[in-house]
């Protein structure tokens, strides 16, 4: 049976590691270079601004541009998507008495919650399992929070460079010295258009990779410095929509069960979330582990199906979809964390290295906390004027002493147990939570998502036909993501184009943005995969399932605003 990992993409991390190539006087020099304007990267930039403000004598050591943040989207927030019910712990630490939670752009604290086990027609309320209790947490739009954090970072003196991708890792004498940004204005064949703009070398004393899930250079760095952890990373794919609704929703809701199948052979692990965003909006999303096997599974279409459930239809009735988006979530947890979170000149933060607590459905506060700790480590190193390889190891120590480490350790086997099927997995997960992670349930090995052998069912035949009101097709959803990527740019998605039909079907159904299509069949039964890369919303699922996403031209992709 075909496995996607048997058809590796034409991609080598070596192509993305280089010495600086611009002449020395043309390189752009910054103090600390942060890649990614998400919660981790912006928390890092904000904390650095605070530290420089408190220690003005250090400003000189950071140079003319003390902190720069690269962002591939149109602006901070453009590529941010999450639930998001946020544990306020890290935000409080980051801002101290500068802001209260009420001052942040949120939809308020969680007031009540329900968990349902769904079947096609019924919804059985179950008591929220301990890890899913959200009392004291706050509802946010991560995209909105990203914009706010971006403003704070800029106010603190950081320079944000939007529409700029980090294409290559600059490594000199075994030490990371910055990144090379991506070219702009190339045509499909790679030729230079009239508005061509070559990338440039951004040289930094410390580089912080805070790229989020499936971070391009994070992946490159993990290989280059041999940092990969005990277990391979695995991912889940989330597709979500934001709705303007006729009547307010009074609590956060999670569901398990339908439309996912519980049989062990399907390996369908996941659930949905439905959160109120104030009185007028509701966000609804479905999360599915990418270790599923059925090539006909489409998370986007399952979300459409979910909305037809009587219980959920009632919430959305009379409303209107205002946004859509998709993103992967690293879910390997503790055992998949890199061996070390630093390399010479380099720090790694947040979702990029998998700081996500899957049973609690939380990661944003870990991202923020890790960004803050990275800032402090970078600052300390610069304060002491240190450059040796070990200068940044205090970051690893700080992370190990933080709640990131203890939280993730506690739930370290949670994700893997669901390989045993939904019900057995559920029971084991409860046992693990009750015992605060002390119950040793045997070593459970995670397999890469792309290693799962595929089956093909007719699951796709029962997806609802989009009606344009409650249920939507993929293309109109891509439109709702704000994506208007230039079509004639080079393809940024690396896949093996000639694969067995079930692999092509897997990608076609999996992709929420309709990037892949099963093309012409050859005599030997393999098919050619056709690509529409400009549809891509950079969710990262393809990297989990046998391909490799690289950054497209800066400014491409979705333009999320409320996701």
């Amino acid at each position, binding site marked *: 049976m075909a496995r996607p990992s048997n058809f590796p993409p034409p991609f080598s991390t070596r192509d993305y590691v280089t010495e600086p190539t611009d002449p020395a006087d043309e390189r752009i020099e910054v103090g600390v270079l942060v890649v990614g304007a998400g919660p981790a990267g912006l928390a890092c930039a904000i904390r650095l601004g605070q530290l420089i403000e408190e220690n003005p004598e250090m400003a000189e050591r950071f140079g003319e541009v003390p902190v720069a943040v690269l962002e591939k989207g149109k602006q901070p927030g453009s590529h941010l998507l999450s639930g998001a019910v946020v544990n306020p712990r890290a935000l409080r630490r980051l801002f101290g008495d500068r802001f209260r939670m009420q001052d942040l752009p949120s939809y308020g604290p969680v007031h009540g919650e329900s968990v349902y086990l769904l079947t096609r027609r019924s919804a059985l309320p179950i008591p929220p399992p301990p890890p899913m209790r959200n009392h004291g947490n706050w509802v946010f739009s991560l995209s909105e929070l990203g914009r706010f954090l971006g403003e704070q970072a800029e106010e603190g003196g950081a320079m944000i460079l939007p529409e700029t991708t980090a294409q290559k890792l600059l490594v000199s004498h075994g030490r990371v010295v910055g990144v090379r940004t991506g070219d702009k204005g190339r045509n499909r064949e790679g030729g230079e258009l009239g508005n061509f703009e070559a990338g440039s070398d951004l040289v930094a004393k410390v580089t912080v990779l805070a790229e989020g899930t499936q971070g391009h250079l994070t992946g490159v760095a993990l290989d280059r410095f041999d940092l990969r952890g005990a277990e391979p990373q695995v991912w889940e794919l989330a597709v979500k929509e934001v709705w303007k609704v006729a009547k307010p929703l009074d609590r956060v809701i999670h569901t398990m069960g339908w439309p996912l199948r519980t049989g062990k052979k399907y390996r369908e692990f996941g659930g949905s979330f439905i959160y109120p965003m104030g009185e007028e909006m509701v966000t609804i999303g479905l999360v599915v582990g990418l270790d599923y096997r059925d090539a006909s599974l489409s998370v986007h279409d399952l979300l459409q199906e979910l909305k037809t459930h009587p219980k959920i239809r009632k919430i959305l009735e009379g409303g209107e979809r205002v946004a859509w988006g998709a993103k992967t979530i690293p879910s390997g947890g503790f055992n998949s964390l890199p061996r070390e979170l630093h390399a010479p000149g380099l720090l790694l933060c947040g979702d990029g290295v998998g700081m996500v607590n899957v049973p609690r459905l939380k990661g944003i506060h870990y991202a923020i906390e890790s960004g803050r700790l990275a800032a402090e480590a970078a600052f300390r190193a610069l304060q002491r004027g240190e450059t040796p390889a070990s200068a940044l190891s205090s970051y690893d120590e700080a992370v190990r002493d933080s709640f990131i480490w203890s939280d993730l350790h506690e739930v370290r086997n949670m994700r893997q147990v669901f390989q045993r099927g939904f019900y057995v997995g559920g029971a084991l997960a409860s046992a693990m939570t009750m015992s605060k992670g002390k119950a040793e349930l045997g070593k459970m090995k995670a397999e890469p998502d792309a290693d799962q052998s595929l089956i093909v069912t007719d699951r796709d035949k029962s997806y609802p*036909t989009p009606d344009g009101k409650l249920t939507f097709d993929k*293309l109109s959803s891509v439109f709702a993501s704000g994506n*208007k990527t230039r*079509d004639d740019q080079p393809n940024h998605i690396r896949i093996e184009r000639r694969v067995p039909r079930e692999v092509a079907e897997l990608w076609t159904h999996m992709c929420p943005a309709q990037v892949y299509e099963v093309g012409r069949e050859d005599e030997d039964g393999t098919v050619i995969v056709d690509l*529409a890369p400009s549809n891509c919303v950079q969710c990262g699922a393809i990297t989990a399932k046998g391909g490799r996403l690289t950054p497209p031209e800066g400014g491409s992709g979705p333009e999320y605003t409320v996701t």
Partner: protein
Amino acid sequence: MATLVFLESHGSELQKGSLGVLAKAASLGDAAAVIAGEGARGLAAEAGTYGAAKVWVCEDAEVAQPLPQPRVDVLAQVVEEGGYDTVLFANSVLAADVAAGLAARLDAGLNWDLVDLELKDGDVIGKRPALQDSVFVDVGWTSTPRLALFRAGSFDATPAGGGNPETADVSPAYKEYSTGVQLVSQDAAESGGGPAIEDADVIVAGGRGLGSPDNFTLAEELAKALGGAVGATRAVVDAGWYPYSAQIGQTGKTVSPKLYVALGISGAIQHKVGMQSSGTIVAINKDANAPIFEFSDLGVVGDVHEIVPKLTELVRARKG
């Protein structure tokens, strides 16, 4: 309102889009026009038939080539000499550059991508589509001169009769930087004759339902019979069936011809936003559930390969 319209000419032909803007301006009051380029004087009378009471002409060597900056010099001079408080442009690569340059030169406000203009209690109000063309917003100016750039095909270029406009020569002192650019070479865009899709009254567009690149001849022949241009969807451009220059939609061109014939096009929203303001939309598609039927004026559920050749034949017969 003292209005000046920038008429774009190439060779000895006035661009239809700019004549449409002139006709609109003339319907609101006195309108003057400016033509810069070789043979400008000879075009003044034609401008008159579209409602220009006065035509400023410039045939200086500096404006012989289709470059923006010398035209900014010409317009700045005309605005000053004629005391115009409103300057209108029809969008094109050249006109957009000239409009932007003039806005900078005169420190004037430029409203971009308008589709209509009206006078309301003495105020000039522009209409601008927003949020992917789902709403129209009223826009105004806080100072004069008011500059506006209109989307292609916003107005019909209908001759209003008249003619014999007053003409005046203009020859500004060109800025040194305005004449510092030379046109080195000019290549024709990859298209097989016929009108450009931005200007065409009729567009026949093909989608994946055509089945193969060869079948684009169906669209080309129907377009030829109707005197129109050929457009294409992103899917077929992506697949290499037709050049990018013909792509209509969100990431291609936005068009509003009088007649839009969609052959084998499903009507994804990405396509719709590029052509929804067309006059009459005719769709032929064998999938009765295709979204295009929701916004077409005339929908035919059927096979393009059977219907289009017959349609082309009938159009030819009717036209003789």
